[in-house]
C-alpha cells in the first residue's frame, strides 16, 4: 500500500485559508547577554506565517533558528532576551506579555514540540497524566472530557490509546515523538512550532512522522513552523522555506523554487553539500570555512568569508533583502534584479 503525495505543495494546501498572516514577526532581535560579550543570535528577522501554512526554517547549528522559535513562543530565559522587534500573533503583540497572559495563548492557540521528547516528557508520570496536566492548566476540567480528548489525540497520531497508561521509557523514540505531537494537538491550536522533532529518529521513522505531521496539518488546518538542519527532509512537506545564516535570513521563498533554483550562494552551497542517493556520483565540496563568531560579527555580509561569489562591496556593507521572482534574497548579486 503506497500513498503518493503530490509533488507540488499546491495540492497539499488547506482549502480556503483565511486571508492575512496568522503570525507576523517584524525586525526581531535576540541577544545573549553574557558577562564578557553580547551575542546577537537573531538579528532583525522578519517573517509571516499564514493560517494553515507550513514554513520550514533551515540552517546550521548556531544560525539562530532555535533561538528564533523560542523567541516566537516567548520561551527565552536569561541570558537570552528579545532586544527589539515584535511578534504579532492573531493581531496581538506577544513581546512583553506576562507569563499569565502568555499561558492563555500557549497550548490553546500555539503549541511547541521540542527536539528531544525523551527530555521534554516527564519520566515519572504516565503519558495520560501529562495530557491531563496540560488540559487542567488550560481550562478543561471534566474527567470524562479529558479522557475522551486524550484518546482522540493518541489515535490521531497513530498510537494505541492504551499507551496513555505507559511511562515515557516504555515507548520507543518514534512513539514518544508522536505522543509529544499528540499533546500539542490537545486544544487543536492554530500554530504548532516544531524544533527538529525528527532529528533523533531513524530515517524510516522520520519519513513516517513527517507524513503524519503533514496529514494532521491537512486535516485540521493548523500552521506549522518547522525548524531543521536537514533541508532535504522538508523538501516535500513545506510550503515555504527560510534559510538562516549567522542570525539573519539569507533567503526565503516557496520551497520548490528554492530547491530548483537557489539564489543565495549559501543556499546553493547547502544544496550541493548533500550527496544524492540516486543519479551520478559527483564530487562535492561542501562549504569551506565555518560560520562567524556572533559575539564579533564581521563587517558587511556575514557569509562573505565563505562565499564563492564574494565581491569587494560585500565586505564593506551588509546587503538588504531583494525581491526576485517571489523570493527574498539577501545578496548584492540581486541588486538590479538578477545575478550579474
Amino acid at each position, binding site marked *: 500500500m503506497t500513498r503518493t503525495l503530490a509533488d507540488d505543495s499546491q495540492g497539499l494546501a488547506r482549502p480556503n485559508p483565511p486571508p492575512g498572516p496568522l503570525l507576523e514577526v517584524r525586525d526581531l532581535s535576540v541577544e545573549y547577554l553574557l558577562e564578557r560579550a553580547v551575542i546577537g543570535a537573531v538579528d532583525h528577522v522578519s517573517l509571516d506565517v499564514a493560517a494553515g501554512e507550513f514554513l520550514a526554517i533551515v540552517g546550521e547549528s548556531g544560525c539562530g533558528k532555535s533561538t528564533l522559535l523560542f523567541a516566537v513562543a516567548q520561551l527565552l530565559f536569561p541570558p537570552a532576551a528579545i532586544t527589539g522587534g515584535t511578534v504579532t500573533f492573531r493581531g496581538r503583540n506577544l513581546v512583553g506579555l506576562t507569563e499569565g497572559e502568555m499561558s492563555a495563548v500557549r497550548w490553546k492557540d500555539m503549541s511547541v514540540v521540542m527536539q528531544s521528547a525523551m527530555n521534554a516528557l516527564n519520566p515519572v508520570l504516565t503519558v495520560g497524566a501529562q495530557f491531563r496536566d496540560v488540559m487542567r492548566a488550560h481550562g478543561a476540567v471534566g474527567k470524562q472530557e479529558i479522557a475522551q480528548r486524550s484518546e482522540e489525540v493518541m489515535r490521531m497520531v497513530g498510537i494505541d490509546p492504551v499507551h496513555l497508561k505507559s511511562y515515557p521509557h516504555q515507548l520507543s523514540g518514534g512513539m514518544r515523538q508522536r505522543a509529544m505531537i499528540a499533546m500539542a494537538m490537545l486544544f487543536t491550536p492554530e500554530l504548532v512550532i516544531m524544533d527538529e522533532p525528527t532529528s533523533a529518529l531513524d530515517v524510516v521513522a522520520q519519513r513516517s512522522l513527517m507524513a503524519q505531521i503533514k496529514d494532521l496539518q491537512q486535516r485540521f488546518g493548523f500552521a506549522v513552523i518547522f525548524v531543521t538542519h536537514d533541508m532535504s527532509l522538508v523538501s516535500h512537506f513545506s510550503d515555504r522555506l527560510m534559510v538562516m545564516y549567522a542570525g539573519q535570513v539569507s533567503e526565503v521563498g516557496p520551497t520548490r523554487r528554492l530547491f530548483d533554483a537557489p539564489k543565495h550562494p549559501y543556499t546553493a552551497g547547502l544544496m550541493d553539500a548533500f550527496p544524492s*542517493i540516486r543519479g551520478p556520483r559527483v564530487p562535492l565540496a561542501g562549504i569551506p570555512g565555518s560560520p562567524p563568531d556572533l559575539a564579533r560579527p564581521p563587517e558587511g555580509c556575514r557569509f562573505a568569508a565563505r562565499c564563492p561569489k564574494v565581491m569587494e562591496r560585500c565586505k564593506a556593507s551588509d546587503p538588504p533583502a531583494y525581491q526576485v521572482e517571489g523570493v527574498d534574497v539577501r545578496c548584492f548579486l540581486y541588486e538590479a534584479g538578477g545575478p550579474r
Partner: protein
Amino acid sequence: MTGVAAEPGRLPQAEPGGEPLLRAEGVSRHFKIGNSASRKTLHAVDDATFSVYERQIVAVAGESGSGKSTVARVLAKIYKPTSGEVYFQGKPISGIRSRRDRLRYSGDVPMVFQDPFSSINPVFRVSHGVLRALKLHRPELSKEQRYAEAVRVFDAVGLNPGAEVLQRYPHELSGGQRQRVGFAQALSMRPKLILADEPVSMLDVSIRIGLLNVMAKLRDDEGVSIMYITHDLASARYVTDRLIIMYAGHIVETGPAEDVLSRPRHPYTELLLAAAPDPRAPLNVSSEADIGEPPRVIDPAPGCRFRWRCPLAIDECHKVTPPLRELLPGHSAACHVAQPNSPTGAFQ
C-alpha cells in the same frame, strides 16, 4: 580466502583478489540483560561474516540498534565476540594478548569516534594527543621526527598549516576541524584500517562533505582502509566501495556500494531507499502501517528479523533464518524471497 559469499570458500568476483586485510567469520556478540529472576540475552550482532580489503572503504549502514557500532567495537577489541572470530592479516585477533601486541593492533586498527566535542582532551593543545600517540606507537622516532610527522598528518587531513593548528586548544577549533584532529591522530599511527563510528553525524551538513573527502583521500593517498559506520546511505554511497546493510543484528545485504543502492535485493534495503529524503526525486510515502520501529532482539526465535515489517513474508521467513545468498556478482542478500534479476518491490 573467501568473500561474503553464502558458501564458504567461494570468492565473489567483485571483491579484489588476494588476502583480505580483515575478515570476520560468524561473529556474534550477545549481552546479558535483566536480573537473576529473568535472565535474557540481547543479540546485538548475530553471525556476521564479511571482509575488508586493502585500500577499501566499507560502510556498515543501519538504523539505531542494528548492531553496526557493536561490529566496530568487536573489531577494535573493545568487546570480545560471543562466538566467531576476527582475522587481521590472516591471524585471529583473539590471540592478541600481550601489551605489545595489543598496542600494535590498536595502532593498526585505530578508532575515530562520533563526538568530536568529547573525544579530545580540552585542557591540552591538540598537539598533545597526536604526539602522545606517536610516542606510544612509533617509539623509533626522535622528538623532532615526531613533531614533523604530526605536522604531516595534520596537513594530510586538511588542517593547514599543520604547524600552526597543532598549537591550538580544542575549543579554538570548529566541530569539523576537531573531527579532522581525530583522523590525524589515527593516521599518525600508520594504520591499516581506521574504524570510524558515525564520524560526521554530529557535524553540520556544509562541513560533512569535507570530512568524507578526507576519508577518500586517506584511502587514495595513504592506502588506508576505512570501516565507515553510518546511518546515512547517501553519504555511504558518496565515499564507499562496499556496503553492508544491517538490520536487528543481522547482515541483510552486502555488495559493491553502487550496486546495492541501484539494485537493492533485500526488502529492508528497498525500504531504507524509499524513506531516504531526496529533494531531487518525487515523494513516495511508504505504507502508513510501517512506522519504522526496528525490534530489540531479545532471545530471538529463528526466522528473518524483518518479517514483521515485510509485506512479502512467507511461512519460511517465520521458521528459518535466511542466510546470505549471492544473487549478483559479489552482491548478496539474506532473504528467502529475493531474486537475482529484479527487486522484490516490497515498498513501491
